[in-house]
């Protein structure tokens, strides 16, 4: 299992559209992907779950991935969150 701290670089933070995009990315992989922030731990493939996080730009969350394609998944998600993609 991979675990990584990622700081959100998207200028608008986790707004509705970026969240939908992120969920799309996560859903392409078979791995179990979770996002944690404070007390909350949500499935990255769940739109509603990700909406409840309500995180802005500059905040840090913990992404974890577990499965056969965990490395690729982690890579893509990190790229998207940091804003380089």
């Amino acid at each position: 299992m991979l675990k990584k701290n990622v700081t959100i670089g998207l200028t608008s933070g986790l707004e509705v559209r970026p969240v939908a995009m992120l969920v799309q990315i996560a859903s392409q992989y078979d791995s179990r992907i979770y996002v944690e922030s404070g007390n909350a731990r949500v499935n990255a493939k769940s739109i509603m779950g990700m909406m409840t996080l309500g995180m802005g730009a500059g905040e840090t969350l913990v992404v974890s991935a577990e499965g056969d394609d965990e490395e690729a998944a982690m890579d893509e998600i990190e790229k998207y969150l940091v804003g380089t993609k």
Partner: protein
Amino acid sequence: MYGVTVTELIKKMSLKNILPEIDTDKVVLAHPDVNRPALQLAGFFDHFDRERVQIIGYVEQEYIKTLDPETKMERYDRLLCSDIPCVLYSRGQMPDEDMQNLCYHYQVPCLVSEKSTSELMAEVIRWLKVKLAPCISIHGVLVDVYGEGVLIMGESGIGKSEAALELIKRGHRLVTDDVVEIHKVSDETLVGRAPDITKHFIELRGIGIIDVKALFGVESVKDSQNIDMVIKLEDWDKDREYDRLGLEDQYTEFLGNKVVCHNIPIRPGRNLAIIVESAAVNHRQKKMGYNAAKELYNRVQANLGLGAPSSL
């Protein structure tokens, strides 16, 4: 760590704040219990539950009256300097001047309730227990089916939301889709509710977000619900054994509480809503004392033992 502020306590219990100058927003209660400081007022401070709400009832107040002024001041001082969250008088009793002065000195909120002591204690404890209950957030769908709280779990995309929608159309109520906040209210009770942001909304792949309350009416939603059983949906795996009889219950655990759990394999063409409905109503029947699997077992046993006629 969870906490509630004394401001919330004042509001909820309609308490009178004797010293409104003290900022009650900053005082946080983290312990779901109360203490009646009778022993402390008598001078015994070992094992003092200082983090609890300190309730002074009629007996304590009468006892204080028997003390000489010096002893009284000394005990008050020791009580209030112990970093307690607040002092709460019941039965509308007014704290004496020394108490008020010391409370102000140590910045301890001083409150008064009109309720009788035991009633006040029960109310405060009950409310704090709910407010401070341990809480987790999990991935799943919670529906109220025939009054049973059914938590449907399973991987993303397996059809939880679709099952929920079908159940709503059949007259059951949605509590939350996708994210369930579970609060452990007692060792037996788990209460599930929706995060405020996604309350009453369902996400359906290909359609998007729908507002269940607006589309299907108030009767199709519910704010919170006890969790009575869990249904785990999974892809049909022919190598796995699924429960065929239901003689023994299987359980899953949340926050240390056990909940009955059914693993249900899905395959195209299986009507999930009707399975969930049957599971819920069967669970209800078991609670009422009838177990169909046991009944079948008894019949088979009777048939073997007594050679009962097949025309039974």
